[in-house]
Each structure stands twice: as structure tokens, then as C-alpha cells.
């Protein structure tokens, strides 16, 4: 397994186990690399759209579906609480974890709270909708906005 894959797994499993993103030093300790090598791997993973980095190049803004910063989309699963990047990623968190969860968000127009239980086979029946203003060809033009 190459260094970038080891770093990717360390980052994603840190999110899965704790609900928050790791510092580069935590990843370095987990995979046995120097922090500078971890940052090199971060850049390679960002180029593959597996990470979105903060402006400092060391903090993790997104490890989709996990968000490294607070968002309006919260997922409760097991003992952990996760932030998701968007509505799609909110369902992506229980899908990635492979265990049930509860999504708490709100309607972007009315502000009405959403509480959506997601089992191993998918969400409970719901009339709520997902909507994106941005077509697929432009999603990565500004992925934070998307």
C-alpha cells in the first residue's frame, strides 16, 4: 500500500472513530511518516478529490462525506456526532460507516428542522427532497459552495 493510501485511510478512520478531523501529527503517528510526508500525501489526495484542504494546507476541510468544520448537516451514529458537507454527504456518513444513524438538518427555505433516521438499508420513508443548483459538470468548480 502506498503512502497516500495509508494516509487516506488514517484520515478517514480518524473521522469515523472520533467525528472530527485529525491533525497532521496524529496522522503521522498513526502511519509512521514524518509530518511533511503526510502533507505531501494530503496534496496528492486533494488532487484526486479525496480531500479538500484548508487554506493552510494542513487542516482538512472535507474528507467526503465527513466535514472537518461545523455545518448545518449533523449525523448521530453510535456514540459519535459527525458533520457532513451537504445533504448528499449527510446520507453518505451512515453509508460510509455501515451503521444506522440519525440526520439532523433543516429545510434551506423554511428552516423547518429535519430529523431523518437512516438504517442499514436506507432512510425511513420521507417526502423531503434533495436539490442542487449546480449541475454535475460544475460541482468541483467550487466544491464548498456546491
Amino acid at each position: 500500500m502506498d503512502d497516500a493510501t495509508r494516509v487516506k485511510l488514517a484520515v478517514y478512520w480518524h473521522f469515523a472513530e472520533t467525528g472530527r478531523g485529525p491533525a497532521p501529527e496524529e496522522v503521522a503517528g498513526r502511519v509512521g511518516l514524518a509530518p511533511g510526508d503526510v502533507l505531501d500525501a494530503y496534496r496528492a489526495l486533494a488532487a484526486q478529490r479525496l480531500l479538500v484542504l484548508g487554506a493552510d494546507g494542513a487542516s482538512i476541510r472535507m474528507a467526503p462525506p465527513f466535514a472537518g468544520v461545523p455545518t448545518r448537516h449533523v449525523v448521530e451514529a453510535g456514540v459519535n456526532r459527525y458533520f457532513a458537507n451537504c445533504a448528499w454527504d449527510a446520507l453518505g456518513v451512515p453509508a460510509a460507516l455501515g451503521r444506522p444513524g440519525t440526520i439532523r438538518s433543516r429545510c434551506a427555505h423554511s428552516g423547518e428542522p429535519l430529523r431523518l433516521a437512516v438504517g442499514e438499508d436506507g432512510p425511513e420513508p420521507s417526502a423531503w427532497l434533495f436539490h442542487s443548483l449546480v449541475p454535475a459538470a460544475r460541482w468541483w468548480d467550487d466544491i464548498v459552495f456546491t
Partner: protein
Amino acid sequence: MLFFRSEEDVRAWCAALGSPPGPLVRMDQLWGLATTWYATRLQADARRPTPAEIPGIFAGLGLTGEFWDPRAPRAG
């Protein structure tokens, strides 16, 4: 990429922004997207769908048209 409680809320929100509404996606369709993209994300051999694969994935969930094609011509 946001949640809305109804189609009326989508239309009102888009009207306030001066943008035409995009396609509406049901929660069961969104689960299909979520599992396709993320169910293997914690595994060593996980990979993202390629641009060539994506339209077929969307079509399998009933999501068709240029909006869902990452290779579509880019306006503007």
C-alpha cells in the same frame, strides 16, 4: 446540495435567488447516490466513480439529462 421539505420550498428558494430550479431528488434516490459514492470509502481499494461511469449510475437511479452529466458542455 441542500434538503427541502417540499417542491414548493425548492421553487420559492430558487425564485428568491433568481435561479431556475434544478431536478428534485427523493430520499431513496439520494441513498443510492450516497451508497454508490461512499459505501467503500473506509476501505483501501475504494475509488470514486469515473466521469464516464457517472451518467450510467445516475440513470440507474432515474436521474437523467444534461444536469447529471459531468462531461456536459459548460455554460458561461
